[in-house]
C-alpha cells in the first residue's frame, strides 16, 4: 500500500486542477516525480510543490493500492479524484468543484463540504461527504443528458439544487435536506433523502425512484398519486414504514416513482375527497389513528 500525503503549504486564490493527480496516474510516482510535476492553475502551470508538501510512503503496483490524503484548505482545489478508477482519497477540509467527477471506481472521503458538481457523471465507486454539497451533486455536466450512472454518493449534510439531475443509475443518499429539483430528468437509479425537500423533486423524470423521508414543500403537478404503500421495496432496497407513492412525471409520460414519508407528509392526503374510491387506501390511512 502506498500512502501519498498532500499537506497544504500555500493557498492559491485561482483554483488548482487536480484531475491529473489521481491514483491511476500516480501509483508509481516518487517524491521526485511530484517535485517535477506542474499543476494546472488557470491558463498556466506551476510546481505542485509550491502548494503542497508531499510525502510518499510505501509502494504500489496499481491504483487500487494507493491512498491519497489531502490536508488543508481545499476550497480552491478542483477535480479531486476526477476520473479515478481505483484507490482511496481522503480530504480533510472543504473541497472545490467536481470532486469525484466521472470516477468509475475507488473511494473518496471528504471531511467537510463540497462545492458544485460533486460526483458528476460518476459511473462507479463511492463518494462520501460529511458536510454539505452545493448544486448538481451526481448530476450531468451542463447540457449533457446523462448524469451519474453507477456507484454511490452519500452526503451527510444537505444537498443543493438539482441533486441527481439526469441520473441514469447508481444511488445518491442525502442525510440532510435537499434543495429544489432533485432528480430532474432522471431515468434510472435511486435518490434517498432523509431530510426535507424544498420543491419539485423529479421534474420531468422518466423513470427511477426518489424516496423522501422528510417533508416535501411542493409537489409538481405531473405526479399522480398511486396510494399509500407499506414497507416498499425500491430498487431492491426495503424502506420500513408507510409511504405515499406517486408516479410521474406525466408531462413526459414518465414512469418514475416518488415516495414521500406518509407521517411527515400527511397533509398531502387532505386534498383528496372522502368519497373518492380510487384512493381507498389513502382514506383508510387518513382515518387511522
Amino acid at each position, binding site marked *: 500500500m502506498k500512502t501519498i500525503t498532500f499537506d497544504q503549504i500555500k493557498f492559491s486564490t485561482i483554483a488548482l486542477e487536480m484531475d491529473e493527480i489521481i491514483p491511476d496516474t500516480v501509483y508509481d510516482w516518487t517524491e521526485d516525480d511530484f517535485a517535477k510535476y506542474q499543476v*494546472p492553475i488557470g*491558463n498556466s502551470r506551476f510546481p505542485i510543490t509550491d502548494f503542497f508538501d508531499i510525502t510518499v510512503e510505501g509502494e504500489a503496483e496499481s491504483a487500487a493500492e494507493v491512498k491519497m490524503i489531502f490536508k488543508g484548505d481545499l476550497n480552491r482545489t478542483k477535480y479531486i479524484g476526477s476520473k479515478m478508477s481505483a484507490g482511496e482519497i481522503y480530504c480533510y477540509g472543504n473541497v472545490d468543484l467536481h470532486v469525484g467527477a466521472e470516477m468509475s471506481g475507488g473511494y473518496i472521503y471528504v471531511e467537510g463540504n463540497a462545492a458544485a458538481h460533486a460526483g458528476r457523471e460518476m459511473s462507479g465507486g463511492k463518494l462520501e461527504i460529511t458536510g454539505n454539497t452545493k448544486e448538481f451533486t451526481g448530476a*450531468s*455536466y*451542463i*447540457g*449533457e*443528458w446523462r448524469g451519474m450512472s453507477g456507484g454511490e454518493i452519500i452526503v451527510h449534510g444537505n444537498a443543493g439544487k438539482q441533486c441527481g439531475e439526469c441520473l441514469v443509475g447508481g444511488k445518491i443518499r442525502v442525510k440532510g435536506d435537499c434543495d429544489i429539483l432533485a432528480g430532474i430528468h432522471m431515468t434510472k437509479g435511486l435518490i434517498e433523502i432523509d431530510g426535507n425537500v424544498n420543491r419539485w423533486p423529479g421534474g420531468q423524470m422518466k423513470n427511477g425512484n426518489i424516496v423522501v423521508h422528510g417533508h416535501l414543500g411542493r409537489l409538481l403537478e405531473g405526479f399522480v398519486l398511486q396510494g399509500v404503500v407499506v414497507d416498499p421495496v425500491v430498487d431492491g432496497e426495503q424502506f420500513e414504514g408507510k409511504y405515499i407513492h406517486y408516479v410521474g412525471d406525466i408531462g413526459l409520460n414518465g414512469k418514475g416513482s416518488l415516495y414521500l414519508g406518509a407521517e411527515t407528509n400527511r397533509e398531502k392526503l387532505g386534498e383528496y375527497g372522502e368519497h373518492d374510491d380510487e384512493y381507498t387506501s389513502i382514506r383508510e390511512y387518513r382515518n387511522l389513528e
Partner: protein
Amino acid sequence: MEYILKNGIVYDPTNKVAGEKKDVMFKDAKIVEDVSSDAKVIDVTDKIVMPAGVDPHAHVAGPKLVVGRLYRPEDSRRGVTAKTKYIRGEAGFSIPSCPTTGYRYSRLGYGTVVEAAMPPLEAKHTHEEISITPNIDIPALPLFGNNWFCMEYAKENNLEDMAAYVSAMLKITKGYGIKIVNPCGSEAWGWGMNVHGVNDKAPYFDVTSKELIIALAKVNEMLGLPHSIHIHPNDLGHPGNVPTTLETLDAVKNIKKSSKATIRDQVVHCTHLQFHSYTGNSWKDAASGAEEVAKYVNSHDHMTCDVGQVTLDETTTMTADAPMEYDLFKISGLKWANKDIECETAAGIIPCIYSGSAPVSTLQWAIGLELFLHIDNPWQVCLTTDHPNAGPFIRYPRIMSWLMSSKRRMEMIDNGEVHKWAHKRTTLATLDREYDFNDIAIISRAAPAKIHGFADRGALTPGYRADIAVYDINPNEIDPSVQYEEIEKGFSNALYTIKDGQFVVKDKEVVMNKESQNIWVNVKGYEREEEKVINDIMPFFTQYYSVKWENYPVHDHYVSNPIVVDVER
C-alpha cells in the same frame, strides 16, 4: 522561398500521377516546375505526397454552429487540449471551436473546406466565423431552395430575373454557388408541414420542388457558375426515399452544362447521398437502396455525389432541413433547437448517437460504404461525413481505412461491432472491393476540387496553389487491407501540411495560425438586371424582412482577404 519535397511517392490524380516517386517543387505560394539551386530540400523519401485535401461539403461556420455550441456545452469539453507555442487551445468534438476546426483539418492534410449551407440573412456571421477559422480556405454556398423570391420566379418560369437575383445574391452574401436544401420543404415547415417527393407543392407558393430544382439548375448554367447546383433532396432520412432521390437527379439530366464551366463535368451534385438511399416503408422494414442508387450514378455522368458516411459516433446534426430534424427529435427525444430564417429557409439542430449496436445507425453506416464501393467511378463520389451530421470530419482517416480494407469491414460485421442489419439488409458483406491510395486521393481532393470547379487547387499542377499534404505512410511497404490501423493513424496526422506554400503542419504538429480566405464567385455582366431585380423585390423586402436592405449585404470588411472567382457573362 523555394522548396523541393524530395523523393516522395506522389498521388496526383488530376495529372494522372499514381504512386510515382518524384519531387514536388513550390515557390512562395505556387507549385512550380523547377526551382533554383537555392531551394530548400525537404526529404520525404517513401512518404505519400498528395495535393492538400478538399472537403466538398461540411458545416464549419455559421449561426447553426453557434446554436449547436451554445446548447451543447457538453460537446465542447470533449477534445480539450492546452494551447501550445503556436496555436490556441482546442475544444469540442462534433462542433469544435473555429480555431480547432482549422487546426484539425490541417492535421488531416486538408486545405479547403466548403461550408455547405449559408442562409443569406446570416451570411455576415458565417463570414465572421470563416475569418477566425485558420489554415483552410472556406467558400460558402448560400441557400436558395426555400427562398421566397426564387420560388416566385420558378412558379412564373422567370429564369432571367432568377439568374439576376442569384447573381446579385452571390455578391451580397459573398457566396460560391447554389445550395438547395429540401426544396420547398423547409418553407412548408413554416406552416408545420413538409413536402414529400418532388411533386409536392410548397404551401402558398404553388410551386413544386421539381420545378424549383430545374429552374435553379438552368440558372446555374445560364450564369456559368464554377460549381453545379448542390442539392440535398427531399425526404432525407426517410425509409423509401430512393424514388425521390432518383427523380430529383433525373429532373436535371437534360440540362446542358455551361461552356464556361470548364473544370466540372456534372450539372448536379447530390450531397450526403447515404441519407437518400433507403428502401422500405418505415424503419421496421427499411433496407439499403444503395445498389439501386449507385446503378443510377454509374449510368449517368450528369451527376456527382458525396456520401455523408456515418462514423458511429455521438455527434450533432444540423441542417436547413428543419422538418427532418423534427422527425429526428420525435424518434430520439433529445434536446432540439429549431430556427426560422424569415423568407429564406429554416434550420434544426439535435444531438444524434450513431451506435454500432443500433440497427438504424448500422444500416446507415453500411449504406454509406456500399455507395463508395458500388459506384464505379471514384471521380463521381467524394469523401464526406456531412460534418457534423453523420460524424465529425476527424474520422475521415477511419473511413479511408474501411474503404481500403474489406477485411476490416468483415471483421466489424462478424465480430458484432455493428448490428446484424449490416449483413441482413445491405450488400456490404458481399463487396470485396478495396480502394487504393490513388482512389483515396481522388475522393478526398481531386474529385471534390473538380466538382467545385476550383482552378487553383486539388492538384499539383504548376501554377496551382502550393496546397500539399505529406503523410508518414510508405505505400510500398504497407498493406492497407491488413494494416488498416496504420492507415487511419497515418492519415490522421500529416507529416507536413503546406498551405499556400507555408508549412502549417510540420513534423505532425500544427505550427501556424494562417489567415483563412473566403472564396466567392463574382458574376460580371448582369449588373443592370441585378439592379432591376433588387428594385423589384425592394417593397417586399422592406415589408417582410426584419433588417433593412442597407444592413443585409456582407460588406467588404467582413471578408478581409477573399479569393474572388470572376465569371464573365
